[in-house]
């Protein structure tokens, strides 16, 4: 199943937030979206997952999602969005219950996804006992449990410290190498974008327009070895972004 963003524009109460976004998200690729604060990245991701509707244009899914996918479009949130009153396994089972998967069937899935995210030992821990990195791993486990056709990630690592980020990025790469998932990955961090993205979409400052789409052809698993090339890509992206970022940073919020 591919996704196709068909000339999407949006405004909130008259303020234009996104303008004419036209984009393909092919199966099996990670598409990174970068752009300065407030340019509409999160909004765009909400459109893709059907949580909100754009003023103009639409998001199309091309082809049917795999039969066994319980929730084709699945989010991973920046703040993890775990239910603090449920244990790790309870948080995973939450998303299975509504599909009528309970008891042994659920246990099997939960066991599997916790193992894949190295959380087997923490099935009964409450979120408050976990470090940030572990919490995000739980969120990933929960997402894997519904066998998504496409992962929608909104700055999944930005609430983590840089060492944990480093570790989780490796996990995401490993996972992709094994499972070849499709993903839209919103981030502020150019380093993450060049480490994870097959395609990096650069948005301009609000109203967000597509400024450039940078393709990175190096296979994910080999990127550590091509540090120099990645540095160059990153420097190029920073060139594109620098002024926009400065301008966005100097804006007074209207509160």
């Amino acid at each position, binding site marked *: 199943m591919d*996704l*196709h963003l068909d000339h999407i524009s949006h405004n909130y109460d008259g303020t234009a937030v996104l303008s004419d976004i036209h984009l393909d998200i092919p199966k099996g690729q990670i598409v990174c979206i970068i752009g300065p604060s407030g340019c509409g990245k999160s909004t765009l991701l909400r459109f*893709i997952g*059907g949580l*909100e*509707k754009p003023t103009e244009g639409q998001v199309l899914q091309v082809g*049917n999602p795999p039969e066994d996918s319980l929730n084709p479009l699945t989010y991973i949130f920046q703040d993890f969005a775990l239910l603090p009153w449920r244990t790790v396994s309870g948080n995973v089972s939450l998303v299975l219950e509504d599909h009528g998967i309970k008891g042994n069937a659920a246990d099997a899935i939960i066991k599997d996804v916790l193992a894949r995210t190295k959380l087997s030992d923490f099935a009964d821990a409450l979120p408050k006992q976990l470090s940030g990195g572990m919490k995000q791993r739980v969120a990933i486990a929960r997402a894997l449990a519904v066998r998504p056709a496409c992962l929608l990630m909104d700055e999944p690592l930005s609430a983590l410290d840089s060492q944990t980020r480093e570790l989780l990025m490796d996990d995401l790469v490993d996972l992709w190498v094994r499972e070849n998932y499709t993903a839209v990955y919103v981030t502020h961090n150019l380093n993450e974008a060049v480490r994870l993205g097959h395609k990096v979409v650069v948005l301009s400052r609000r109203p967000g327009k597509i400024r450039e789409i940078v393709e990175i052809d190096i296979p994910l698993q080999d990127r550590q070895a091509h540090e120099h090339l990645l540095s160059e890509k990153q420097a190029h992206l920073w060139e594109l972004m620098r002024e926009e970022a400065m301008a966005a940073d100097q804006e007074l919020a209207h509160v």
Partner: protein
Amino acid sequence: MSDNSLTRSETTATQPVPYRGGGFSPKRARWVAPVVFVILITIWEGGARLGWISPIILPAPSEALNALIDLYNSGDLIRHLSASLQRLVGGWFFGTLLGVAFGVAAGLFTLARAGIVPLVAAIFPIPKIALLPLFIIWFGIGEESKIATILFGTFFPTVIAVYGGVDNVDRGLIRMGQSFNLSWWSIVRKIILPGALPAMLSGFRISASIAIILLVAAEMIGAEYGIGAYILLAGNLMAMDQLVAGVTILSLMGLTVSWIIGRLEKILLRWRV
């Protein structure tokens, strides 16, 4: 699944992603409240006129309105109101003053907290009407006992709100103040008090409501004038129209106070996100 081929007419199924957001965020709808009130009052009036609601049970709103107008015309409204307002303001002011002082102390000092908090917990739930006989003996039957009743009623919730507020002041800001060598008094004045202001204001909202509720209890003791005394007399005479009129005045006083505090919050807490 669906085969309506859109812009890209291929053999693969193409369809918009399903929408599943929205909801769970009630909007403001300013028009509803007046409508609800008007409907309720109309039903009530109609019910009374058609005899569905017996006049012993509830007078028609129009009768209550008449009682209110009578009260106004007799000139007593002003006398009742001013008597009650003086007691309210006096009791509330001193209760708040004391409450803030004790609350800040409980928020800052281990000993003060350990002493004040359990005392407040033990005394707060005592109904003030139960204490009226004591108040008469302690403060007499003049204005003092009425003011004391209201003072007593406002003191405790203020203490609780204020020490909660002080507790919730970001310790990071206090540490910042210390790291810049601010004096103890500067930290209290410039960081803790403004930081506790939101909690204090919402405490004032509660204490003011309690003060209004206690008017009736306070004016049980030898009050000739006052909205509470008016309500008591009405209840006593089974004059339901006057009772409802008096209760309406209390209710309006509550709304006014809440509006005033709302304005204050808007102005003083402009800095809040």
